[in-house]
């Protein structure tokens, strides 16, 4: 059995709430709907009263029949039954109608809240949790929340019905009523025992389902790799294991949920038998009338119906509670990025200061230790160094995607923690290494950062890059659909679109993470010309691997394991014949056409340092 439970642990941000906390929280969502809820409650009460009327009326007429045989009274009662049925139906119709509106609105609110809270999370959250699992919380779990709410309303009407019937029974005959209640403790005990077991199994079932789903997500995203390596069978086998686990876990919890209903019905029926027997004795002893006895036998079924149906819906209720727990855990997760104030920055000059900064993504590895760096406004800085040296982290810290653990980071002399992040980021332009595009046209994507931009502006920006040559390769020019995540475009085209997006945004600080990696040398040269103009009055942080980009930088910073080894201009650094020169010789020479892999550096011609274009 060991393997069955593998991989079903809670997420790091999961927390446990008591039922009371959960229900209180759920109810708080309904506060804006007080009026509607009041109407619904009144309808529920009315409906329950009308439902109780039926057995009462029947019993009344039976007594009439057995007693004085007045058919006239019976007819009147039939009329009353009709009226109560019609009223009950009307009440129910309005109730359903209003409930749907209330629940629909509340779920919409909850969904939007959850989504907004996901969007507020910093990047470490998205590194840790797969998109599949996050998505399932926002859509599926909030859906189950709707079920809970509907069920709570049902529960309310069932409890009311139970109380009403119980009241009527006590009023009619306290002795028999007490007798009918004898099995009540048994039912409550079973329901309670069931509850704790159900919670545990439900959680496991949902987690195993989430596991299945994230596996499906992975195959859909990684299908090309599976095809390239012809790994379909292995993928399938791995999936089958997870799917089997989910099957076992779900069948087990299903047994529990489905088992509870017949058991409770059985107990309820035992209760009915008790009333039949002892009530029958009472009739024989002439302590009660036959009609009254029948009323009890009839209504005891009705009395237990609410309880048993509560139990039968319990599974959905539990599923829903567990789901809302997951939703609330997501809403309540502490953001790691903590802003101390919300000052919207005015136009940023672009001075960046790192003071004794300490940063790590997790507790395992420290990326930056006691890091100090001053970047002047308008400067273009190129970071070079090994993979994992912390180059990208510097850019991400400036973008405030991650929280740092010590020291200070200030922009224009102001602590980055005091900014209103939205307003701050609007003045940042980030070109990531693997650009992400949203489905829509090329125009839509360039406009993304500034939804108010005109078509003319977009056209101008697009033409600005590489002389607009890249547009000719697009089948429908700027109106070409890019496909989901931009998959209809080549990687180079995506990078150009991402660059155009940032240019249109007109940021004060630009962060480029090897932004031109997949652009061919021809286009790159054209972009470079454009970039020189664009970068002129802005601070630019370039994490560059390309010679051409690096050599155009105002200052090159050589970084290793979070430490600055050297800094300066290309020529100066080369003359120092230290780290940069070494990096340059070993790292960048392979970008030269004169380099032959594994065989060292074969010089084509002896050329001076100056740009050959000027020569």
């Amino acid at each position: 059995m060991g393997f069955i439970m593998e991989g079903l642990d809670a997420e790091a941000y999961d927390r446990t709430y008591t039922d009371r906390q959960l229900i209180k929280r759920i109810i708080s969502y309904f506060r804006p709907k007080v009026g509607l809820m009041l109407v619904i409650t009144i309808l529920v009460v009315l409906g329950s009263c009308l439902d109780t009327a039926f057995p009462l009326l029947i019993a009344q007429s039976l007594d009439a029949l057995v007693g004085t045989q007045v058919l006239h009274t019976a007819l009147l009662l039939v009329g009353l039954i009709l009226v109560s049925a019609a009223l009950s139906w009307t009440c129910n119709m309005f109730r359903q109608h209003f409930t749907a509106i209330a629940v629909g609105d509340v779920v919409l609110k909850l969904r939007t809240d959850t989504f907004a809270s996901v969007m507020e999370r910093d990047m470490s959250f998205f590194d840790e949790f797969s998109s599949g699992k996050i998505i399932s919380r926002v859509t599926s779990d909030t859906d189950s929340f709707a079920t809970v709410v509907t069920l709570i309303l049902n529960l309310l009407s069932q409890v009311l019905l139970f109380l009403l019937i119980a009241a009527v029974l006590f009023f009619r005959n306290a002795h028999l009523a007490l007798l009918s209640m004898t099995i009540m403790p048994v039912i409550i005990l079973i329901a309670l025992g069931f509850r704790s077991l159900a919670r545990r199994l439900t959680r496991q079932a949902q987690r195993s389902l989430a596991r299945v789903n994230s596996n499906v997500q992975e195959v859909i995203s990684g299908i090309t790799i599976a095809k390239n390596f012809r790994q379909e069978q292995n993928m399938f086998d791995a999936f089958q294991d997870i799917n089997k686990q989910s099957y076992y876990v779900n069948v087990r919890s299903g047994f529990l949920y489905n088992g509870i209903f017949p058991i409770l019905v059985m107990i309820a029926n035992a209760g009915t038998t008790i009333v039949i027997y002892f009530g029958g004795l009472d009739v024989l002893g002439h302590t009660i009338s036959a009609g009254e006895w029948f009323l009890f036998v009839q209504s005891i079924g009705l009395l237990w119906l609410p309880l048993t149906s509560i139990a039968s819906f319990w599974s959905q209720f539990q599923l829903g509670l567990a789901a809302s727990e997951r939703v609330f855990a997501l809403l309540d997760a502490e953001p790691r990025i903590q802003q101390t104030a919300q000052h919207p920055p005015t136009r940023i000059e672009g001075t960046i200061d790192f003071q004794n900064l300490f940063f790590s993504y997790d507790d395992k590895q420290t990326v930056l230790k006691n890091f100090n760096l001053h970047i002047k406004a308008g400067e273009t800085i190129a970071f070079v160094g090994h993979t994992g040296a912390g180059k990208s982290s510097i850019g991400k810290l400036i973008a405030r995607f991650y929280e740092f653990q010590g020291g200070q980071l200030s922009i224009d002399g102001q602590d980055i923690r005091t900014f209103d992040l939205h307003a701050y980021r609007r003045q940042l332009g980030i070109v990531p290494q693997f650009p992400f595009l949203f489905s829509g046209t090329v125009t839509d994507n360039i406009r993304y950062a500034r939804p108010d931009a005109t078509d003319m502006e977009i056209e101008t920006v697009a033409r600005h890059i590489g002389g607009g040559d890249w547009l000719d390769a697009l089948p429908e020019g700027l109106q070409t659909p890019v496909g989901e995540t931009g998959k209809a475009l080549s990687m180079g085209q995506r990078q150009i679109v991402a660059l155009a997006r940032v240019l249109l945004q007109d940021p004060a600080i630009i962060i480029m993470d090897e932004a031109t990696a997949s652009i061919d040398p021809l286009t790159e040269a054209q972009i470079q010309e454009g970039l020189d103009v664009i970068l002129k009055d802005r601070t630019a942080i370039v994490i560059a691997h390309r010679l051409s980009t690096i050599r155009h930088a105002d200052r090159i910073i050589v970084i290793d394991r979070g430490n600055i080894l050297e800094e300066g201009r290309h020529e100066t650094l080369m003359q120092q014949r230290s780290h940069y020169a070494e990096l340059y010789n070993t790292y960048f020479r392979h970008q030269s056409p004169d380099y032959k892999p594994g065989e060292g550096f074969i010089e084509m011609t002896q050329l001076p340092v100056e740009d050959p274009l000027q020569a």
Partner: protein
Amino acid sequence: MSARSEFTLANDYQYNRSGPVRWIVSHLLRYKFFLFGGMFMAVTTNALYSTIPLFTGEAFNAVQRGQTGLPQLISITLILLALLLVQGSIDLSARFSAEVLSKRFTRDAREELYSNLLGKSQTFHNRQQVGDVMARATNDMSQLSDMVSPAFDTIFDSFSSLAVILIFIGFLNLRLLLVPVLYTIMFLIALRYYSRKLSPVSDRMREEFGKTNATLNEAVRGVEVVKATAQEPQEIAKFTTRAGRYRDYYVENGKIQGRYLPTLLLGIALALAFLHGLYLLSQHQINIGDLIAFIGLMTNLRFVTFMSIWSFGLVQLGISGAKRIIALLNEETNLDENEQGHQGKMHGDLIFEHVTFGYSNTPILKDISFHATPGQTIAIVGQTGAGKSSLTKLVNRIYDVQSGSVKIDGIDVRAWNLDALRSQISTIEQDVFLFSRSIAENIAYGLKEQKVDQAMVEQAAHDAQAHEFIQQFPHGYDTEIGERGVTLSGGQRQRLAIARALLTNPCILILDDSTSAIDSATEDEIQHALQRVQQGRTTLMITHRLSQIRWADSILVLQRGEVIAQGTHDELMKSCETYQRIFSHYDPVTPASVVVGQE
């Protein structure tokens, strides 16, 4: 079924996919024992359950008789207790059967969909929105499960109770059947009307759910861009619009459920039944005990009436879900496994003959012809969007050509067995995709059925210059990647991809700009390793590295989908203007020694 697929399972159970209902039925029929066993037990349960009002009626008659009725009352009580026990256990078994059936159904349907998705062509996958496919594979699937248990379960249960009730009333007195039979007819008509009303709303609800999911998926996956551009409000607005539409259909669904007519009909039927009963009583056709039993049975109709609102709602949602799932299953795919195709060792002789290809009507590649002899390295250069990646994807049949042909060892790739073809070609992609598994598993990913040998994995990692950084992780090769694991840099990912490709020992190697993100000293060694790997292998290389281009055996210059020049570096430097321009933009490197020398 001759549907095309790139991947099929051995001994795959065949389901009928001609319609949602048939598909569901064919799935359920796979487990006849649970299906029919469950049905039988449900009927038995109901038959037993409905005898309770009969015994109650008997008891009423007994107590009417005074003290002489006591022994009868006792025996009725005992019978009732025994009945309850038997009925309860059968009920329990019936429900367990339904549960097993429901969970097996979803398990099988998931497997069916999963293997089907694996078998679909890349063209198909490019068309799909990941979020929507996910919604079908997850939420629509759970709708299926809910449809079988509790919905089918409840429907069968409640309808057999309806039948049993009618039969029992018939036994009491045939005349009493008048009202209940009329009610049943009206009930069925109203139910049909209800289902029809509900069906389009359920369809739209599922559809909107899928779209909401797709919007959400996009926002979450592109969250870095959203944050970087501070466009959260835009994304939230987009999402709210979608979720708002779903809410509208949800409310519509609720309204239809509220207008469910059978509950009203039942109230009327109960009143009329009572009236009819009273009439028959006054005519001495029945006794009071019969009347009481009759009313008791009629009251039990509440179960089928009330449960149908909910159970038929679930069925509608389940059918809508099934529609969406089989729509995905039945999507045509244009490639197949070609089991009878050519198999055997590949030598790596690659020929493109007048190849034209496009994703839509606009061709991406036009009349491409070239020849690569075994062991040659061909560099493909050209501006972004020129069709370089598309060209390489024709070799291992990720896509098929529209006209012309691609031949390996003189055999058209479409005549190769897909398995044999793809397993002898390795691709290192631009955007490296790694699975959320351990590093060792990711490297060994390409090995088929072979036992994963740690030594081999480490050797490959060594060759790809990945060993060193892997060793630095606390768990070494067992370190998990992605979720719950480490985040790797672009360069690290690429080295793992190279190791992955090395381990499969391919005959044709496709490098799609695979070293562009490697920035460190390791590049030289990787290049060296790659060069070793390239020996004896035909290599297609998309690259922007001038050095790689320069040393390739042959260079293909692509412009807007056409080959404008082909030859060695020296030839092209003389003959091709575009090629010259690539190199002219480059600042030649001067080794440090030269710089120093010039001081």
